[in-house]
Structure formats: structure tokens, C-alpha cells
């Protein structure tokens, strides 16, 4: 029984759901809800991105671009053309899905980090287009987005959004774990170990990498759309290079190839700037120091290193 509960797939999901359900008791006002929602949004994007970085061993420097593309597709289609938000969100998914497939298919045939280069360029192009086409996107000063509505029901305010994002987070963690444990996930871990060996036993390495890339881009697009409706205001910075880097940092800090690691990374990098805002001028220095020390002393990321330590400690005791 205990063994079953400590299995990450069931025990972890249970703990995560419990935390999400009980957290509102500790949230005194809407500002805290807002931070929690932002953690949730970042966490879902990062859980998707972790599939690509942690399991397919590829780095994307363009997920901010996919996030922004989703956000702006939703924003423009609902505000300018009056589309229903859900349809706009799905259109964003289709656009991002096709775009990421077109980019990844030829590139992932090559070995090495060519995907990072291509996504870097793609992300920058997306944010430049958003900045420059101001007749449609409002340009560098951003645009307003209407609230999310579904069948006449309007999703508005921090508390309802908290539950929606919370539920989505549990679902996406569950999906990510299923993907990891599926034939595709096992194949990819084989690729990560030795690509040649995997190819020899007949794994379509390119196909699986492309699949994970598209899945992770779609995660980002969906969250971009929802973020646009939640926040009500979007700027090209959402699609920018720094946002992409922030997302990759969350994965690396929390721990690659660990879904809960990605979660922890998202929590830390969203909460830290808020906690450190009292230090004024030293905010960035302390922030950088924390990141540096973590990566020097825990190069595998927080969660994998700590669980490893915990196992050692347990092993030593019994």
C-alpha cells in the first residue's frame, strides 16, 4: 500500500491535488491568488517543456514564442473578429502545432542542438512580428483581451481561475507522466541513453522527438491563450526571448527529466522575484546568486538531487 502511494504517478498526483485543494486556506487575498495562478500557468508550460528537454534531450529557446503566439491568436480572434474564446484557443493550438511540426521535422533529423538554434530564431521572429504589426496586435504597448467565456458563462476573477488552472495542472502532470511511461517515453529514454542503440532496435527517434516537441509547444500555446484571457492584457514580451529563457531555467533549476522538478522550478522562479522585491537594488544580485549556487551544488537540479540524497539517507539507515 505504502509502496503504491509513494509511486510518483499516484502518490505524487494525490499530494499535488491535496496541495492545490488546501492552498486557498493560506491565501489571504487576491494578490496571493494571482501569484498562485501564475505559478500554475508557468508550471503547466514547464511540465510540457520538460518532456522535450528532459526526455528528448533537446533544448527549445522558442517556447516563449509559442506562448505568445497562443496568447495573441486568442486575443486577436476574440477581440477583433469576435470568435468564441474556446474556438480561438483551439485555432491557436492548430497554428502552433503545425508551425512547430514544420520547424522540427527537418531539423530533428540532424543530431546536435540545432533545434535550439532554430527555435531561438523562430521565437525572435514571432516577437518581432507581434511588435511590428501594430494595426493588429497593438504593437509594443500591448493589447487588451476579453475575459474567457464558454456557453454564456464568464470566467472572471482570481478565485474561479485558481480552480481552473489548478485542475489543468493536475491533468497536465498526469498526462506528462503517462507520456513518459508510454512506449514513446520509453523509446525516448532509450534515445537519451544512446541514440544509435535505439535506432538499431528500430526506434523512430526523429518521429518521437518531433512528437514531444509538438506536444510541448501545444502546452505552451494553450497556456498562452488562457493567460491572455486571465490577465486581460498582453504585450510582445510574452513572446520574447527572455520569457523563453525563463521557462528553460525553470526546467533546469527544478531538475531535468523530473516532472515534479519542473513544478518546483516553476514555483521557485515565480515566487522568488516577489519575495525579493523588498531588497530593492539587490534583488537581481540575490536572485542570480541563488540560481548560480543551486546549479553549482546541485547540477542535476533541485528535485533529482534531493530525492537522491533522501534515498541515500534512507538506505544508510536500514
Amino acid at each position, binding site marked *: 500500500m505504502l509502496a503504491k502511494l509513494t509511486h510518483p504517478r499516484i502518490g505524487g498526483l494525490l499530494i499535488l491535488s491535496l496541495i492545490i485543494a488546501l492552498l486557498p486556506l493560506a491565501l*489571504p*487575498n*487576491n*494578490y*496571493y491568488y*494571482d*501569484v498562485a495562478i*501564475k505559478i500554475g500557468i508557468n508550471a503547466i508550460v514547464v511540465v510540457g517543456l520538460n518532456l522535450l528537454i528532459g526526455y528528448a534531450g533537446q533544448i527549445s529557446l522558442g517556447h516563449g514564442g509559442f506562448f505568445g503566439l497562443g496568447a495573441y491568436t486568442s486575443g486577436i480572434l476574440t477581440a477583433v473578429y469576435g470568435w468564441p474564446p474556446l474556438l480561438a484557443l483551439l485555432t491557436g493550438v492548430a497554428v502552433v502545432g503545425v508551425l512547430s511540426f514544420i520547424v522540427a521535422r527537418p531539423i530533428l533529423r540532424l543530431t546536435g542542438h540545432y533545434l535550439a538554434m532554430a527555435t531561438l530564431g523562430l521565437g525572435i521572429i514571432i516577437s518581432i512580428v507581434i511588435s*511590428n504589426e*501594430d494595426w493588429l496586435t497593438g*504593437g*509594443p*504597448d*500591448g493589447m*487588451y483581451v476579453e475575459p474567457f467565456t464558454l456557453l454564456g458563462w464568464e470566467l472572471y476573477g482570481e478565485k474561479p481561475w485558481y480552480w481552473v488552472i489548478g485542475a489543468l495542472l493536475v491533468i497536465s502532470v498526469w498526462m506528462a507522466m503517462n507520456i513518459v511511461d508510454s512506449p514513446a517515453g520509453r523509446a525516448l529514454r532509450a534515445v537519451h541513453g544512446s541514440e544509435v542503440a535505439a535506432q538499431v532496435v528500430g526506434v523512430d527517434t526523429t518521429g518521437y522527438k518531433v512528437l514531444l516537441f509538438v506536444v510541448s509547444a501545444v502546452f505552451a500555446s494553450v497556456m498562452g491563450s488562457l493567460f491572455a484571457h486571465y*490577465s*486581460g*492584457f498582453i*504585450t510582445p*514580451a*510574452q513572446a520574447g526571448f527572455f520569457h523563453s529563457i525563463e521557462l528553460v531555467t525553470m526546467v533546469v533549476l527544478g531538475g531535468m527529466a523530473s516532472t515534479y522538478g519542473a513544478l518546483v522550478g516553476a514555483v521557485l522562479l515565480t515566487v522568488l*522575484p*516577489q519575495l525579493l*522585491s*523588498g*531588497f*530593492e537594488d539587490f*534583488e*537581481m544580485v540575490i536572485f542570480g546568486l541563488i540560481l548560480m549556487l543551486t546549479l553549482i551544488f546541485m547540477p542535476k537540479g533541485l528535485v533529482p538531487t534531493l530525492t537522491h540524497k533522501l534515498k541515500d539517507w534512507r538506505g544508510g539507515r536500514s
Partner: protein
Amino acid sequence: MLKSLFTRGAMLAVCAVSLLSPALADDAIKIGSFLSATGPASFLGDPELKTLQLYIDKLNAEGGLLGKKVELIHYDDAGDAEKARTFVKRLLDNDKVSLIIGGTTTGTTMAAIPLVERAKIPFISLAGGIDIIDPVKKWVFKTPQTDRMAAAKIMEDMKKRGYTKIALLSETSGFGRSGREQTLKVAPEYGIDIVLDETYGPKDTDMTAQLTKIKNTEGVQAVFVFGFGQGPAIVTKNYAQLGITLPLYQSHGVASNSYIDLAGDAAQGVLISASALLITDDLPADDVQKTVLVNYKKDYETAFKAPVSTFGAYAYDGLMLAVNAIKKAGSTDPSKVRDAIEQTEGYVGATGVVNMSPKDHMGLDLTAFRILEIKDGGWVLIQ
């Protein structure tokens, strides 16, 4: 030994508590602020923050406001609209401020507007974009001149000098884009025809291509450049290198001494629209703004040992408008303070004379801009 350890621990704990909760004094008047004190817009946000801190300290030294201390709660948004949005939520929901002064850029201000409108808290923005107050939003005010006014002031001067055909060269940044749009709108009102409409990127290092095109266009009588930072200085240098002799106009985006330093001798004769603060010392003694500007300049320069900038002046006006309104309302009740700000009349500020109304939440007119000419590395007022 044990005792000293204990006291040290206690001191540390006190430090930690005071760091985590800067808002211990509950009966103080809380003024919230979010500025881009770091990041790409820090040359705007930094003097704004310093000005706010300086004058709030001064206010407290003189006994505070309505008999209470004034407390500034400030967050640095680094120019990121999304960060600004979260910080505004924090100011409204967590810190429960009575009023917000902030929003260094138009983007961060726009992100804050829906929140303050919903929370019904007065908000004085320090950003330029005309969209902030047009259409009028009930709780939102602003202190800087708009880009439309800058364009109008320049067009006014051109008309006076008899230029009717001009070339426009604008930057593809937020500032330049919005400026271009407003210039195109305003020009016909002054009977001015924009015969050539060129742009350059904010990071471009050479604009001779655009300027050559301008030089070779028949009938152009003057050139207007709308941008800020390095770009306009490079344009000015290229302008001199190409030997163009047409009058060159620049926007308030270059209204700082660093522009003259960057452009060097090429800046000779350039005309710009700017706040009177740049020529504080040379203003005639009977100018309405003279006393305000001299005092602000003296206060700022003695406190920070750095030259004043027109951006800090926006924050000065924002704070003074707020202080006057709170005094007039006799309380910090948001709707009373809001009404008092809206009724501001004849306030002589560092940017201009402010007359607010329910239809105008900025209250400045074209006199808030002066046309200055650069002569021998300094500014000269053109009457």
C-alpha cells in the same frame, strides 16, 4: 556568550521581520508606486523613483500629511508589463494603498488600468501615450505631455516659419511608432504635408540611406525625427555628414544633455520640443514655472549629485497633485481624492500648468512644451 548570541539572534529576527513587512506602521498614508527603476526604461524610472523618495522624506520631515506619516510602497517592474500587473495587484489587494503613482512606460500603465478601474483607486501615470487618458478613464490621470502635443508643438513652430512640406523620420519603437501615428494625424490641422514618411530601427547604427532619400526628394522644407535614445543622435550625425542644410526638428525623446554629448557639433541648430526644466537657469524671472523649476532642480541636484531630468519632473508633479488632492479632500477616501484630483486647477508644476476637468485627465496645454534650439552645446529658448 549565550546572552550575546541571544541578542544577536533577536536583532536578526527583527531585521528579517522588517525586511519582509515594510508596512508595519498601520496609520500611515500609503502611496503605492510601480516604476521601471531597472531594465531598458531605467533612465526614465530611476529619476522618477528618486524624486518620489526625496519628496516623501521631505513631506514626513515637515510633519507628514493630515497629521500622518506618508509611506511609499514601491516595486520595480523592470519595464515588464506582466510584472507591473502583478505588482499593481499586490499594491491594491495586499498593501491596500490609498493611491498609486507610477507606470513609467505606456505598456506598464496600460496593464495597470483595468485593475485600478476595478479596485476604484486613483492612479496617476507617468507615461506619455495618449491612449492612457483618451478616452478618459474615471480613476486614471497622467502628468507628462502626450506625443500628440509634442507633434502639435513642432507643427505649430513649422507653420510659424512657413514650412508646409516636411519629411518625417520615426523610430520603430513604441515611442516612435506612437509619435509617427500622432504626427500623421496632427499635421493636416496645421496645413502641413508629410511628403516623405521614413522609419529606422531602434538599434540601427547608420541612417544615411533614409537621409539620402530625404535629401533627394524635391520640395522638402524641414525634417522631423521622432525617436529616443541613441537613434536620433546618429541621425543628427549622419545629417551633418551628408551636408543637409534643411532645418532639423527632434521630439522631446532627446530632451537631455546626453543627446548633445552624443551628437556633438552636429547638434548645432537642432530644434526640439521640450519641458522648460532643461533651461531652468535661463528662464525669464517672470515665467510662471520659474520658482517651481529652480526649487526642484536645487533639491534634486543637492540630494543626488546628478543632473535633473524631465522624467523625474513627471513624478514630482504626480506626487504634488496627489498631496494637494489629499489635503483638499481632507481624507484618503479614494473617491474624494479622485474628485479632488479631477478638480485640480491652476497647479503650476515642473512640466506645465495643470487644469484638469472631467473631460481632460492630464490638464496640460501646448505651453507645457517649449521650442528649444541647440547652440554651442547648450539649450536656447526660442520665443
